[in-house]
């Protein structure tokens, strides 16, 4: 019984005077196994995505002696994010913004081309639920057996099977939580520490949380997460258009539906008869309990399994496959009106726009990543006092500077003021460099704060000449070995 039928039943009950069905109890779903193209694609993606998730923390990446050797690592303690050759500092968190834009646009683009590709194949909720269903099927049997067992109630056998099933689910859930924490510390060390009960309490807590969440969401909540909790189906429904491919029941071809015998009789008598043999296979395989023949609906995650089921039936009854298929709204309508369908239109203004945004944002990110410097300087002029008069009458301004060294070796930087000839530049904690500028040493992968003093000669008397007020000046930070230079603009205040 589909969810809709169940609701209709409850409504009928209400009409008969029963209490109103403002809340519905859950209809448990027993999806039947199915074979076919989309099932194979789903298996492949399941293995691929779970494989990446479980194996990634163990991949090593050599960054030299002063940095972690884990390819993907979120180092919360030192505020660093490592992704293979990329290292992100907290002040570069805008890359995260970029990633989020890319993710949203990729989702929109997928949707504009082929509907809920994300939901049907890639979403963790789908992948883990699919895996849990597979385990369930392995232990308790296919749809019919499970339904029978549910009806029969507890026997020694069903109890033992349920025990094994929940244990297997918990193991998977536990591995899921266990892999998660490995992204936040050196994976092999953490595995060893966790196994010998020396791991940090935080790690155990997170493993427990994620184990529970996986077990609960994939084992019990399942399609309810999609139907009631997730925002994406709502957004998706508002974003789709009649040119987007969606899992579609081609009612132009299928209706009027009827059993093989009945429809053959109809045809023989000269009345129209559809290809749908009303075998209900598309409904029983559906992991969300939807009847796709009722059209696009929010509960359908577009996993394509009903396509496989229907294709198998069509092959058996000797009719062309594709009664349920990825198709566009407009084509179904065109065929219904007896017109030829359009070729798939992947290039539409919206797909081009999404692709363009992905290209631009991705391009900017790649460009800035490729050209960003391994050093950085930021300067802040003292607010109090704005300037200091020295005993010989010359004027000095003080600045707080912060130098970032993003390499894994200590480096020596010379602090220069190139454009507003100072009589002297000094910095706290600096040595005198080979060119007369102060030189500061910054440790590997660190920042250093210092105070810099810039002195200018005593200004000429009188107002209105160039010596007064505010002047622009530029700090240059030069690596003494490589010569890499970064600049920061600031100003010099005169009395």
């Amino acid at each position, binding site marked *: 019984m589909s969810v809709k039928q169940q609701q209709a039943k409850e409504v009928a009950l209400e009409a008969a005077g029963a209490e109103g069905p403002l809340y519905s109890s859950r209809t448990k779903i027993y999806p039947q196994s199915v074979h076919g193209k989309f099932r194979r694609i789903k298996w492949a993606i399941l293995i691929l995505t779970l494989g990446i998730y479980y194996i990634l923390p163990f991949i090593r990446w050599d960054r030299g002696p002063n940095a972690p050797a884990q390819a993907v690592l979120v180092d919360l303690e030192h505020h660093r994010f490592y992704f293979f050759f990329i290292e992100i500092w907290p002040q570069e968190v805008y890359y995260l913004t970029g990633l989020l834009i890319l993710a949203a646009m990729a989702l929109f683009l997928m949707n504009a081309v082929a509907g809920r590709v994300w939901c049907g194949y890639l979403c963790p909720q789908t992948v883990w639920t699919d895996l849990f269903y597979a385990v369930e099927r392995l232990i308790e049997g296919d749809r019919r057996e499970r339904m029978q067992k549910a009806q029969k109630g507890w026997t020694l056998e069903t109890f033992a099977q349920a025990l094994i099933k929940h244990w297997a689910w918990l193991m998977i859930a536990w591995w899921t939580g266990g892999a998660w924490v490995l992204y936040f510390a050196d994976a092999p060390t953490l595995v060893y520490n966790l196994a010998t009960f020396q791991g940090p309490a935080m790690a155990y807590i997170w493993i427990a949380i994620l184990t529970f969440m996986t077990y609960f969401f994939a084992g019990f909540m399942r399609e309810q997460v999609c139907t009631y909790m997730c925002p994406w189906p709502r957004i998706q429904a508002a974003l789709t258009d009649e040119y987007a491919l969606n899992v579609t029941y081609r009612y132009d071809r299928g209706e009027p539906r009827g059993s093989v015998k009945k429809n053959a009789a109809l045809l023989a008598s000269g009345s129209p008869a559809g290809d749908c043999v009303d075998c209900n296979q598309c409904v029983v395989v559906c992991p969300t309990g939807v009847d796709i023949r009722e059209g696009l609906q929010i509960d359908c995650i577009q996993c394509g399994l009903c396509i496989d089921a229907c294709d198998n039936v069509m092959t058996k009854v000797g009719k062309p496959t594709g009664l349920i298929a990825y198709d566009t709204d407009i084509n179904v309508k065109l065929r219904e009106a007896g017109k030829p369908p359009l070729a798939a239109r992947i290039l539409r203004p919206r797909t081009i726009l999404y692709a363009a945004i992905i290209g631009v944002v991705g391009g900017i990110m790649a460009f800035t990543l490729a050209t960003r410097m391994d050093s950085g300087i930021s300067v802040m002029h003292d607010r109090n006092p704005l300037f200091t008069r020295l*005993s010989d009458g010359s004027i000095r301004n003080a600045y707080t500077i912060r130098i970032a060294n993003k390499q894994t070796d200590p480096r020596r930087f010379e602090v220069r003021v190139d454009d507003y000839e100072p009589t002297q530049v000094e910095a706290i904690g600096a040595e005198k460099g080979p060119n007369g500028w102060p030189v500061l040493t910054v440790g590997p992968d660190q920042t250093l704060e210092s105070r810099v003093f810039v002195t200018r000669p005593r200004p000429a008397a009188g107002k209105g000449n160039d010596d007064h007020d505010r002047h622009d000046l530029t700090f240059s930070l030069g690596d003494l070995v490589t010569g890499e230079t970064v600049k920061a603009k600031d100003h010099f205040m005169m009395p």
Partner: protein
Amino acid sequence: MSIAPHDPSPIDAHTGTATTGHEWDGIRELNTPLPRWWLYMLYASIVWAFGYMIVYPAVPLVSSYTKGLFGWSARRAVAEELAALTAQRAPMVNALAAASLTEIEKDPKLLSFARAQGKAAFGDNCAPCHGAGGGGAKAFPNLNDDDWLWAGTLEDISATLTHGIRSADPQARVGNMPAFGADGLLKPAEVSAVADYARSLSGLAVDAKADLKTGAKVFEENCAACHGPEGKGIQEIGAPNLTDQIWLYGSDKATVVEGINKGRGGVMPNWGGRLDAGTIKALAVYVHTLGGSGG
């Protein structure tokens, strides 16, 4: 607006979906029932809210409030966090207390810690007179410049901080600018002349009619003992250098005359007993690195 509470045909003909049976001006509300667990979650949250009210401070009473089971208070939470912070800083604080002033300036880690500590302590204790960044004001020296009344080495600054200037501390720095005019030591004309002379020492323009000769003589007889024969000052007794460009009270003639007439003598408190040794060290390092030492 009419509400028909019980529609005899609650299935919407167009969509085939159930309706709630409510109708507003001919528009019927479709029924999309929520799962029942959703409702249970609402109940659970209500239960949770009551539990929360029992465990945490919640209900305002006439002059107090319910304190909650564990007596949690925001004030105590802050105190605990501060204590944790102090404990976390302890190793550095101890290292700072153990190191000598020169050691601190040589060790980049200690230096930056001392400067941060010093900056905070400066804001709390020194800024009211010397300004937030040590920029000074009339009668309160600018600590950023290179002109030091009582010398500006790390040790000197530390000593000034500990014992103060003209303070109650027996080891306080003491120096005395007499009130030459008020006490009748100099006549008004002599005061005027020596004021002109003193200003000329630092290259300030003086009136063409100024009697610099008398001024020089008065200076030699009365001022040179403390300010030095060339007016360069003597830091041991806090006598300022009169030849530089820095004037603590201002360089116009009226101000200089006022100083000679009435004398000067600013007071700096002795922080020795009030701040702990580590904080004084941090302050000394902070002030020293404001730039007065020349970097």
